[in-house]
């Protein structure tokens, strides 16, 4: 299965936006992580923006960056959202409330607790009525999302926006899921064409041992291991450095995605 990449969005400490992130990943700029300012989510109507969760703002921020690069109309592009735990901050607030005697939770908090909150807000922000999926595969959520997005592109022969995100988990839930840094990435994938800057061939194969691609830079490798969405980093690094490259992403203990990348010359 072959797809082209037409747009990339990226947000993490030291990797703010694809332009800056690409330089860091290509080794032409230093990786200097400093706290990321809260994304504005200017796409959302003001009342929705005020109530939106961190996850929603991060996911929409990278989604917008990727779609803008692709030049596609977001109303025409189906979406796949992938996250290990989704709205962990909202779930924390809901469970705190439910542990109190009155158990009065706000309707807004409740509807924001679903795994497809970012998907729903993206639709509200862009008026997109296309198919949208939200999924999870624990640490391999990015790989599962990529698999769903690529099969969608190939089977339906149309572009798809993939958005993967997981945010730092606050106490006390971090005892159960210790993710210490936020990471969000978006890819616009499409049938191969002149509009792609990279083409990517996917093969799914049985894995007999962990052969997943890693990063040489220890600080970036630490980010990759810390956050499920950051499992995208070897792929992003390969795109940043260019040339023909093979990347392997683990999917559970028994499968792996083998990605062969080729730069497109327009």
């Amino acid at each position, binding site marked *: 299965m072959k797809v082209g990449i037409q747009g990339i969005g990226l947000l993490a400490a030291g990797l703010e936006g694809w332009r800056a992130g690409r330089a860091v990943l290509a080794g032409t700029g230093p990786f200097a992580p400093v706290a990321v300012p809260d994304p504005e989510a200017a796409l959302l109507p003001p009342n929705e923006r005020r109530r939106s969760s961190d996850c929603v703002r991060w996911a929409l921020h990278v989604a917008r960056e990727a779609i803008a690069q692709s030049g596609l109309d977001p109303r025409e592009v189906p979406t796949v959202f992938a996250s*290990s735990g989704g709205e962990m901050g909202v779930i924390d607030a809901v469970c705190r409330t439910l542990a109190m005697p009155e158990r*009065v939770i706000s309707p807004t908090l409740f509807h924001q607790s679903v795994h*497809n909150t970012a998907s729903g807000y993206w639709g509200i922000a862009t008026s997109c*009525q296309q198919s949208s999926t939200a999924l999870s595969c624990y640490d391999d*959520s990015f790989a599962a999302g990529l698999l769903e997005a690529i099969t969608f592109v190939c089977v339906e022969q149309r572009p798809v926006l993939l958005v993967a995100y997981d945010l730092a988990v606050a106490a006390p839930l971090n*005892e*159960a899921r210790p993710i210490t840094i936020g990471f969000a990435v978006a890819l616009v994938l499409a049938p191969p064409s002149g509009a792609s800057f990279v083409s990517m061939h996917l093969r799914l194969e049985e894995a007999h041992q962990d052969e997943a691609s890693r990063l040489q830079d220890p600080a970036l490798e630490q980010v990759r291991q810390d956050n499920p969405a950051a499992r995208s980093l070897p792929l992003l690094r390969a795109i940043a450095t260019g040339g023909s490259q093979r990347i392997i992403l683990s999917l*559970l203990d028994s499968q792996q995605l083998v990605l062969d990348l080729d730069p497109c010359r327009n």
Partner: protein
Amino acid sequence: MLPNARPMTPLTLTAYTLVTANGRGVGPVLQALRERRSGLKPCDFEDVPLKTYIGRVEGLEDFSLGIELERFDCRNNRLAWLGLQQDGFMVAVAEAKQRYGAHRVAVVMGTSTSGILETEHAYQARDLAGSLPAWYTSRYRYTHNMFSLGHFVRACLGLRGPAMVVSTACSSSAKVFATADRLLRAGLCDAAIVGGVDSLCLTTLYGFSALQLLSSSPCRPCDEDRDGLSLGEAAGFALLESSTSVSRRGAVALLGYGESTDGYHMSHPHPEGAGAIRAIQDALGRAGLQPRDIDYVNLHGTATRVNDAVEDKAVSGIFGRMTPCSSTKGWTGHTLGAAGITEALISVLCLKHGFLPGTLNCKRIDPTLHSRILRDNDVRPVQRILSNIFGFGGNNCSLILGTLR
């Protein structure tokens, strides 16, 4: 779906199983449907004092998964396990595994709240420093994390193919059919276990109560006095294979599916049902069918004022006043992330046994609804059924199931 595209190759439901408040396995569910016996009872879940009815599956409170699966132990996975044990499902999966190889069978599950009840209990058991108990933190991955159900089902069935959990609120276990079709068509697997499990928890009981969407009586879909939904819980699974690899005349198959979003509001449907219309038309297009080819529509029909009215606009706009429609939520309650598989399998029972369920608890059909709402059960041959599921985030999915000729 693009216009002029060819219809999809139907996917055969080689085996299937369902557990709802009406019973364990498709037999008891079918019997309840025929006898018009609801599974809804006054809320007796934990210490919840809400004045509402629930479709609780009996026996989940005192239940052991056994030592090997202990780390997965939570209400949601107990319900999943109960589902897997019914209707010879495990045997059918073992045969498929033999046929194709464990790594060629995918697992695509749907749930909205996974094992969140564990987290709710853990927050109640925080120590003075606010820390969560160790029994919870060491098992979060296997209980509450959104992938837990997929992990659990894959482990129970000994499968090694691709797996994921779709969580798009109420449409979750309808959309698993679409994802499985893509994996099959792309050649990434030869068979797929699809399904969904959602179980009762405080989050949804108090959440829907906060939205003022819970009825104080058993839910009454399409009734002029309907005043909200009743929550339920369910587990359902199906083994999907391409109809070209297992061509069986008379077998029940997925003929089409349609996915869309409203792009309108997180918890209110689009007022004109725009997203619902898209999903239904997409499903018809993918199946290569016209509205007149559909014999019965299993409505989402939650019994909230707004859902039933908006869904009626979409359904009557496409099917007019002739196609019989009903909601089966009066039997099961709204099983949220499991509603897709629950109603898909109820549709399978209708196809297999030639009957249409009326809308249980609907006494006087809302005169402002334009669709042909069935109030009483009807016995007649049925060839093709469309099932609607709509969820939070404006996420919609329609499935078309039919008998292969």
